[in-house]
């Protein structure tokens, strides 16, 4: 059995997809409400996310960790011509703080393969910005909204030691966002509804990342 560190830190960045169906519906609603045809510039396209975590071993093949992930995405619909422009932007940031237990599936001197499931609290911050600028006159409107949801994120994590302290770290998984009702940031009762149904967050999607793992202490 090779020696293993008792505490490890991971820092990583990656690529994620986002469903965001509810917020896409909000774009559709805006599109219908304006008197001109508008086009979709961005629509919650796949983007980067970043994270950091710390793990420690509980038993010989069971580890537990504390994780944080930051995701950001958004959309823009609008039009621009000689007379001015109009846009409606949504900027969505997610902060996930969770506990991540894992099972060491296989460990050799050259790598370690862990299956983990992370869950915790996902805080979503949404900022909408609507701008109409016609003939030099500009009207703007901004709204700040937030949501809280509980995600489940199963993933496969591979660490490949470079030396005794540093390992390469790779992770792939699928996040399931149970969806939190979007409401005004300072009024939890002011829930955003479309056709009588509340709009929910939709961080659900695939995630893949790479980073560094710092191993502290030895067993």
């Amino acid at each position: 059995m090779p020696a293993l560190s008792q505490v490890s830190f991971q820092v990583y960045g990656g690529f994620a997809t986002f469903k965001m169906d509810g917020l896409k519906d909000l774009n559709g609603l805006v599109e219908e409400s304006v008197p001109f045809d508008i086009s979709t510039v961005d629509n919650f396209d796949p983007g980067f996310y970043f994270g950091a975590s710390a793990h420690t071993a509980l038993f010989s093949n069971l580890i537990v960790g504390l994780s944080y992930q930051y995701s950001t995405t958004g959309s823009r619909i609008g039009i621009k011509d000689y007379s001015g422009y109009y846009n409606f932007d949504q900027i969505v940031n997610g902060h996930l703080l969770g506990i991540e237990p894992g099972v060491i599936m296989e460990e050799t001197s050259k790598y370690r393969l862990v299956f983990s499931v992370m869950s915790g609290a996902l805080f979503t911050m949404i900022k909408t910005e609507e701008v109409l600028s016609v003939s030099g006159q500009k009207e703007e409107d901004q709204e700040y909204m937030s949501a809280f949801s509980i995600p489940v994120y199963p993933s496969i994590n591979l660490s490949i030691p470079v030396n005794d302290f540093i390992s390469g770290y790779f992770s792939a998984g699928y996040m399931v966002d149970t969806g939190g009702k979007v409401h005004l940031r300072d009024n939890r009762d002011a829930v955003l509804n479309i056709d009588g149904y509340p709009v929910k967050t939709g961080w659900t999607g695939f995630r893949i990342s790479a980073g560094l793992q710092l191993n502290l202490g030895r067993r």
Partner: protein
Amino acid sequence: MILIHRLRISLWLCLLAGLFTGCEYQPHELPVNDIDQPPADGPPIVMSLNDMNDTIRIGWKREFHYDITGTDKRINYVNIAFEGEIIHNYVIDNQQTFTFTLDPAEYSNGNYHLNISIFTSTGSGSIADKVGAEVYIYELDWPVYVDKTLPEYSNSYLVAAHSEAGIDLTWTSFDHPNFISYIVYRYYPFFQSEPVAVATITDPLQNSFTDSTFCEGQIIRYFIRTVTPAGYSEGQDIVFSDQLHGLRATWNSNGTADVTWDKARNPESFGKYYIYSGYRSTDFIEEQFIEDPDQNHARLLNAGFGSGLYIFLKFIPKGVPSELYRNLSGIEITLYPQAMLPRFYYAHNLNGHDFMLLVDLDKIYRYFPGQVLTDNSISVDLEQYWHVSVSGDGNRFAYYQNEEFFIRSTEDFSIVSQFQGPPLKTLNRTLARCFISDNGRLFAVDSEGYGYLYNTTDGTLIREDPLNIGGYPAKLAGISPDGTKMIILSASGETILYNFTPGGWTEIGRTDIQPFGYLFSKDSRSIYIIGMTTLEKRDAWSFSLITEFSLPGGYFRSTDPDHGRIFCASDKEFEYKILDLETGRLLRTLTLGSGWCWLYDNLLITSGLQLTLPEFE
């Protein structure tokens, strides 16, 4: 140490979080929509107020509707001000109509202006165009003339004329600021006395109206009410007499007539057609009602000979009660069928022959009723149609012309004999009747009651007798087919039968019946004396009564001795009957315009026409 170690970890995590959130999503630039800017000036537009394009003349509060034409651009905004006071503000999103009210109550008479601003879209499709920030602006100054003087009484001179669309009404227009409306009223004096408004016109210059809902064929009255804020005035009524059209009739030889007419143009008011016919314009014998507006034909079943039959057609409007039908107007025609056979004065049935002799004053025809055929004729010059006689066997006929008697064969109209008759002109008399017997005798009676008996073979006068009865000359006389009996009617009202003997005429018997006609049987054994109300059959040898029956209410017209029938009138006008000659049994009742006709089996012949009756049993 452990605590210090964990604090370090938390510090790292916070630093990382701050680093991450600095990488927030940034949206991409908007694409530019490449559309052209619109022209600086919009297209010229035309605005009309209540369909007017010139000065508004107003005296009272009035509602206006305006139309804007000349542009296909969206009307975003209309602002109308009267003397600085905004009276209308149209905004496209407010679901308003192009309507406003102008009330000049607070303004004195004079000239003013409506200031009208119209904003239309440019139609460029740009964002500014779509949100109404890019517009064409039109400014109008619309002259207004306020005249609150109440109008003088206005009488509308109204005229009406028929057109394809209906009844066109035109009247004197009342173009005044205080005009509100014209109301066209209509009523039918014969069945609807309460006038009904059929149109309301709010344009003072529209001084015409076409009434397409009128009840056809009626006398219609119209008047125009001109309404102003101060009240209304009504012009004189006019009377318009509408007519139905196209009434035609075709007579059929079975006594029916097919009637057609042009369909009513206004099924909206149609109730039924009323068709009736008669021989007087004030009376009728047959009527029909047709409730299908598309049915424009009918068959009259009691047309008789059709000649002189009045046929009436009326358009009965919906809801008019039947007691008012006689008040309604209609159209009428008089039927005159085309002649099928020669016109004549009198006809003779010929016993034992299938033809008749038709007698006109200048011609005698041989006519076959069964074939509707005239195959022979001779020209004659008769003073009276009754100067013709046919023998009982139908083989000879005689006529008196220019004081001569002509005896001709009925087969080929050849002259059998011709001889001089009594010199009546010298005696200043006329011939009353003449009779030819089967045995070649001819008996003539003149207007003074003298009887002349001739032998037609050589034209010799056998006897000449003054036929006086009780001092009164005979009015009518005749001899039997065998030439042995003579019957005369005296002016005193007695009928006497004589027998011819070598010593002269010997009375056989007499009766007080006043005969209208005689008819000897072919064998001369009996005589039918047809009175005004009765028919007696008597033995020609003893003058004893054989049978007798009444002729109910009518009198004799003609006989068809070959078929044993008599045709006579009844006690009802235009009604005729066919009776059995022997029994008086009623065989048929007919409605005819004229009883001047002759029966030949089931054919009834009158001058120029022939009616085919159903076969007798």
